[in-house]
């Protein structure tokens, strides 16, 4: 039988003392919540940065309320750090660290992750990486200005960025440490899901969230290596003056782009796939219908994960790379839209003729689905070389990736938060304020990015501090609308914060299964006991048996006695 590393002798938090129970805990549920709080905090840092530079974009040269005037170097610094923080220190820790950690053992019926101490180490590792990244704002000349993609030679030579040296070094270190943390997490996720499932849980009875987290872990683990190599090379360049990427030393700057995007593209699916998986968990529960095409979704996830390694150079069509690579990568990129289309069709089909309950979680899931559709479709003109020649480095790209990353790492994640909050904290969030939060968030988000699509089509380039080009000036009103949209979005987070923290302490007590859902996490208390389940669950069926003909109750838990199925099957 599978074994785990020795757990501490005391099991219940009350016996462990504050530090072991809440700070240096090896319990995956506590660690998941630590990731949650860290990523939410960093999310607000990231949004704060966007507030500053979006104000500059809408009202160039004016003083940003609460901040002051933004200089060009500051603008590039904030744009760089916004992207870096959101992708590496919000999206990944939230979707993988928080949801993955909290849910995987519960959903597969295990009592904890395979390597609880490694799990704790993974959180404190990303904590260190986060601190280093935040410190980079305050070192001489400030944080990295080279874009979240950190292209060389701009990021290679301090002189090119106006002297950023320590900021760049801390950026590289922060990233390397972040990667180490996610790798550690991935070891746990894969081992736990493969080797510690409850009796009766075949892989075809695993919830789609677990599949999504596994696919993400595999994609990350297999793609990050070459970038770690690149990061170490760049660190050497900055620290000791080697020339790994400098043409004058005989190297090729394009190498960085290849190494970055070989990872970078699977990385965006590392974010997208778990986000979509959260939607796939929420939809059946609030449609009271099985997910349509469970196996099709699983195979699509695996196909997309595999193809994700073959598409990276669509980020480099205009980089000066060998043009021979353009066609093959365009073909693979269009091909990868197919498994995603299958997933989206399956999710829509789940809603067809369903008894839809518009809870807050469901609203966020539907909003995520709608916007991911937009994001996915707008990826096609970017992923084919011919149209990308015009659209590359315009705001069309920005709007495209925000319509994929925000629906998954933001909107779906918020939906997941409303959905699993009762399980995490043992209390219910306020539904009314949740719906207010949704309306502000969704309308605000679209008010930001629909104008940005239009700016991009109009030729508006990204990473431009102020609209000095004459052809750009007619697009300015769109920037103003987008910034107003951002203000709506930001204001809408206030009811969320109040609701979140208030409910944590004063919300109505949650029962074990307030949503009448089937997956195993709902088969135990809210919040679960330290060992997750009082007795090991025996799984007898798949996760999405809702409204099964012949059974009166419209849901059948995964660990229901086998006899319940006898009538309908």
């Amino acid at each position, binding site marked *: *039988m*599978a*074994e*785990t590393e020795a757990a501490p002798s005391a099991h219940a938090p009350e016996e462990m003392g504050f530090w072991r129970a809440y700070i240096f805990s090896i319990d995956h549920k506590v660690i998941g919540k630590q990731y949650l709080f860290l990523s939410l905090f960093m999310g607000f840092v990231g949004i704060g940065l966007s507030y500053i530079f979006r104000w500059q974009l809408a009202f160039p040269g004016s003083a940003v309320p609460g901040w002051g005037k933004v200089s060009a170097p500051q603008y590039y610094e904030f744009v760089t750090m916004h992207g870096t923080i959101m992708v590496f220190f919000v999206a990944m820790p939230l979707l993988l660290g928080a949801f993955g950690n909290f849910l995987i053992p519960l959903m597969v019926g295990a009592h904890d992750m*395979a*390597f609880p101490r*490694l799990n704790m180490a993974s959180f404190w590792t990303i904590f260190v990486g986060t601190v280093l990244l935040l410190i980079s704002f305050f070192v001489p000349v400030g944080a990295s200005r080279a874009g979240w993609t950190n292209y060389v030679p701009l990021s290679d030579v301090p002189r090119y960025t106006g002297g950023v040296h320590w900021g760049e070094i801390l950026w590289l270190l922060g990233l390397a440490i972040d990667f180490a943390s996610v*790798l550690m997490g*991935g*070891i*746990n996720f*894969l*081992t*736990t899901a*493969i*080797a*510690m*499932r409850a*009796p*009766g*849980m*075949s*892989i*075809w*009875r695993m919830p789609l969230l677990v599949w999504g987290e596994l696919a993400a872990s595999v994609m990350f*683990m*297999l*793609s*990050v*290596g*070459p*970038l*770690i*190599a*690149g990061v*170490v*090379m760049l660190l*050497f360049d900055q620290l*000791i*003056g*080697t*020339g*790994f990427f400098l043409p004058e*030393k*005989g*190297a*090729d700057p394009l*190498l960085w782009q290849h*190494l970055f995007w070989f990872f970078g593209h699977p990385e965006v699916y590392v974010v997208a796939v778990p986000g979509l998986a959260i939607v796939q968990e929420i939809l059946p529960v609030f449609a009271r219908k099985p997910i349509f095409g469970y196996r099709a979704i699983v195979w699509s996830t695996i196909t997309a994960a595999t193809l994700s390694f073959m598409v990276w150079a669509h980020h480099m069509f205009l980089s000066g790379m060998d043009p021979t690579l353009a066609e093959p990568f365009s073909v693979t990129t269009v091909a990868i839209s197919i498994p995603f289309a299958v997933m989206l069709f399956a999710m829509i089909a789940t809603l067809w003729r369903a008894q839809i309950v518009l809870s807050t979680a469901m609203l966020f899931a539907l909003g995520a689905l709608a916007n991911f559709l937009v994001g996915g479709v707008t990826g096609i003109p970017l992923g084919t070389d011919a149209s990308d020649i015009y659209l590359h480095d315009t705001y069309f790209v920005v709007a495209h990736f925000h319509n994929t990353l925000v629906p998954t790492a933001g909107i779906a994640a918020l939906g997941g938060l409303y959905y699993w909050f009762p399980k995490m904290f043992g209390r219910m969030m306020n539904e009314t304020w949740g719906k207010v939060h949704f309306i502000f968030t969704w309308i605000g988000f679209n008010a930001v990015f629909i104008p940005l699509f239009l700016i991009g089509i109009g030729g508006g380039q990204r990473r431009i501090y102020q609209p000095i080009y004459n052809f750009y000036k007619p697009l300015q009103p769109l920037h103003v609308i987008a910034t107003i949209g951002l203000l709506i979005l930001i204001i809408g987070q206030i009811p969320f914060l109040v609701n979140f923290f208030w409910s944590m302490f004063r919300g109505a007590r949650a029962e074990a299964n307030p949503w009448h859902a089937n997956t195993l996490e709902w088969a135990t208390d809210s919040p679960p006991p330290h060992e997750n389940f009082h007795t090991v669950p*025996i*799984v*007898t069926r798949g996760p999405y048996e809702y409204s099964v003909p012949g059974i009166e109750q419209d849901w059948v838990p995964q660990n229901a*006695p*086998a*006899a319940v*199925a*006898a009538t309908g099957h």
Partner: protein
Amino acid sequence: MAESAVDIGMVHAPVSSTLEIGKLGMWVFLAGETMVFGGLMGVFVLLAISRGGWGADGAHVNWHIGGINTLVLFTSTLTAAFAQGAARGGDSAGAKRYLGLTALIGLLFLVIKAFEYYGDFAEGFTPLAGLFWSFYYLMTGLHVLHLLAGVVVIFGMFLLVKPTTPGTWLERKLKYVCLYWYFVEVVWVFLFALVYLTPAAG
């Protein structure tokens, strides 16, 4: 279908009963590590091809010492394999001895490497001496760090093991500890070929 609570129908049992989590976890980790070293080596090879070989830049790499170190590392994996054999046979005292020997030989590798680096530096072959030497120090340096970690873990195991330690427990632990050590050896095998022998050839 029977109606007992444990009836799981026609679904076969999960993989879990045959895969030990320590081994599985280690392999997941090694897969990621392969991408790091593989990435570095791939880039190194491509740049070498683009320049038609490292030529004069790589001619001064000390493959004699590299060869000796390879022999040292091979010996340390031999002792590691002996440790595994001893554990399998229930001889924990013997396993302890072999683990200590492995750690010592690993340390010898590091000492020889330190001398080698020192000698290279003395002759002016620093990481700034050209692209080849930048890669040389980066790749061998990264390998050194991994080897050092391995030495520390094996030494830790050496301290932990007592003659009364159950052989089955030790056998399971050593399976993935020694796996890591063999991985370090595989990386070195390719490093030696790429960074020592090939530049010195022809």
